[in-house]
């Protein structure tokens, strides 16, 4: 990667940092601008006045806004995400303990979606108009239309309750990777199914577009085998729009993970946020949402980098004209 590549990387990094910073400001505003007495909002009506007063002091809620903002930002930067109101445990620890479970779930879902969706999309494009193409089209749209938590419930009913092939609920025994893997299958599938359909459609349309390009005609004019024309010359070009949309979809995938984790009673960020919201455990909500944002930004950064790895024109962006 040359100077253009370095500039591209620096630009992407800066954007990512700005997004994280913006998210931090928003999250702070959310907690600071809750109308009414913050202690009452956070602790609920049952809290005793003494406890509320101590809480206000400990959380720094009695200080001026700019001091609180500064405190919040510097805390976050040193890895201090605040303290769980109910248990008194640090939020960072809570989040870290469930983070791997969510990361593994979302990444296996993406992996599954790519492994199944890309070949299906290529097949549909190279067999355009065939019966298989039409069946795939209907299935894809159906997969995309059904929300992942509905798929989750169906899978749970069929494979766990009726057929009893796979364990039902929970993340599995921490010391037993095989048990954990078994318990990953259904949630990952539930999360991936819509994405398989989506990626298949996306790859199909990008492939069809690319196959009509003059450079594909060139490859054919030289008699290159259809296998090389499709999987080498066309696929790499078709990956570019697919990747771009995939990056944006990560946010929705993380959102879907929340519901799937709840259905399968899996530990994870989704469950953590859900539980925290239902008892108004504000610091935990704040901390875990921030981590989700960072996760989203990091994944997008990776997508952008792979994007540049595929498309040399991006790496040269901003560099002067072509060589003579």
């Amino acid at each position, binding site marked *: 990667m040359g100077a253009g590549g370095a500039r591209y990387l620096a630009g992407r990094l800066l954007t990512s940092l700005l997004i994280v910073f913006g998210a931090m400001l928003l999250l702070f505003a959310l907690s600071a601008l809750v109308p009414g007495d913050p202690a009452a909002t956070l602790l609920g009506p049952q809290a005793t006045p003494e406890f509320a007063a101590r809480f206000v002091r400990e959380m720094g809620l009695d200080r001026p806004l700019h001091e609180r903002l500064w405190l919040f930002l510097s805390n976050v930067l040193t890895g201090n995400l605040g303290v769980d109101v109910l248990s008194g445990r640090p939020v960072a620890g809570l989040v870290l303990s469930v983070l791997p479970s969510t990361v593994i779930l979302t990444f296996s879902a993406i992996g599954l979606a790519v492994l199944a969706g890309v070949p299906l999309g290529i097949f549909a494009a190279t067999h355009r108009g065939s019966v298989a193409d039409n069946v795939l089209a209907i299935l894809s749209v159906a997969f995309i239309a059904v929300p992942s938590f509905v798929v989750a419930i169906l899978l749970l009913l069929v494979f766990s309750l009726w057929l009893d092939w796979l364990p039902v609920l929970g993340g599995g025994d921490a010391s037993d990777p095989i048990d954990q893997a078994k318990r990953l299958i259904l949630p990952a599938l539930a999360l991936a199914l819509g994405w398989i359909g989506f990626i298949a459609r996306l790859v199909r349309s990008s492939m069809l577009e690319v196959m*009509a*390009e*003059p*450079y*594909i*005609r*060139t*490859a*054919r*004019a*030289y*008699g*290159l*085998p*259809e296998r*090389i024309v499709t999987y*080498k*010359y066309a696929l*790499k*070009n078709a990956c*570019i729009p697919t990747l771009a949309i995939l990056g944006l979809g990560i946010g929705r995938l993380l959102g879907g993970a929340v519901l799937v984790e709840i259905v399968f009673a899996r530990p994870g960020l989704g469950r953590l946020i859900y539980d925290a919201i239902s008892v108004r455990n504000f610091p935990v909500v704040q901390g875990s949402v921030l981590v989700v944002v960072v996760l989203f930004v990091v994944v997008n950064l990776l997508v952008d980098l792979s994007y540049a790895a*595929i*498309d*040399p*024109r991006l790496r*040269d962006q901003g560099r002067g004209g*072509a*060589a*003579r």
Partner: protein
Amino acid sequence: MDDPLLRIRGLTMTARTARGPARILSDIHLDIGRGRILGVVGESGSGKSSLASCLLRLLPPNLERLEGSVDLAGTDLLSLPEPAMAALRGTRIAMVFQDPMSALNPVFTIGTQMVDVARRRAPGLTRAQALAKAEAMLARVAIPDPRARLAAYPHQLSGGMRQRVVIAMALLAEPELLLADEPTTALDATVEAQIVALLDDLRRDIAGSIVLISHHLGLVAQLCDDLCVMYAGTVVETGPTAAVLAAPAHPYTRALLACEIEAGDEGRLASIPGEVPDPVAPAQGCVFAPRCARAEPRCHAEPPLLRDIAPGRRAACHFPGAVP
């Protein structure tokens, strides 16, 4: 011509369009002699590129009808099964496409693309050998620092450079029949002269035949043994270049020549009064009659056949000019 390399008989191609079937090529009769360069000239839209694509049997997706025969040294290309046709592409026939900007794949280096073509032609080559061959070929089309260019992506090269890469690629295929569609349009006069010299050399080297499609009558006059004038998807005049240019028999050829002389040395085909006929609504009689100054009632009623008017010369006109 006693034993031509390529013998085209009654080649007709129509395509479906929103307005109905379009007649893109109609009843083409043409021979291409062994080791000869045939220049194909005609206004934009006269079907020159379509004819070249037909010879490679790279047909448009909206093809409706393809009739006639294209005989390459005893093999009818139009009735050949697809795998056998694919086997000829890049080995016995190769094509330089009209637009060098889009003819190269944007996400692969020049080297990768040339290596694939070289190894398709000579499957035994190692990558290193193929690269060396590609480098030599780039040097041959006067690309400075060819080794560095092999690592470049198409967008990093200027239009003229890309044009030369595309020509070098065709030369790698060492074809019996080279189809060059406007190979010098993107080049300035100096480079154009180099390419012309190169094509001339090439003919001596590989004893192959070349079809040179060009707007530039001057270039054709300098380089081509034979001339084929196309109009509205059909051949209106053929013959040895010098003889045709000295005494054009078809009024359209005369009009083309007049345009060229008017425009001077730099001249490409300037416009001839009137419009090229609509391929969807072909004329009743002679295709050129609506624009012909000498058209008589018979010309509007009855299409003239391409017929011998002198040894080696043919024209499709009821009233051809006097030929010595």
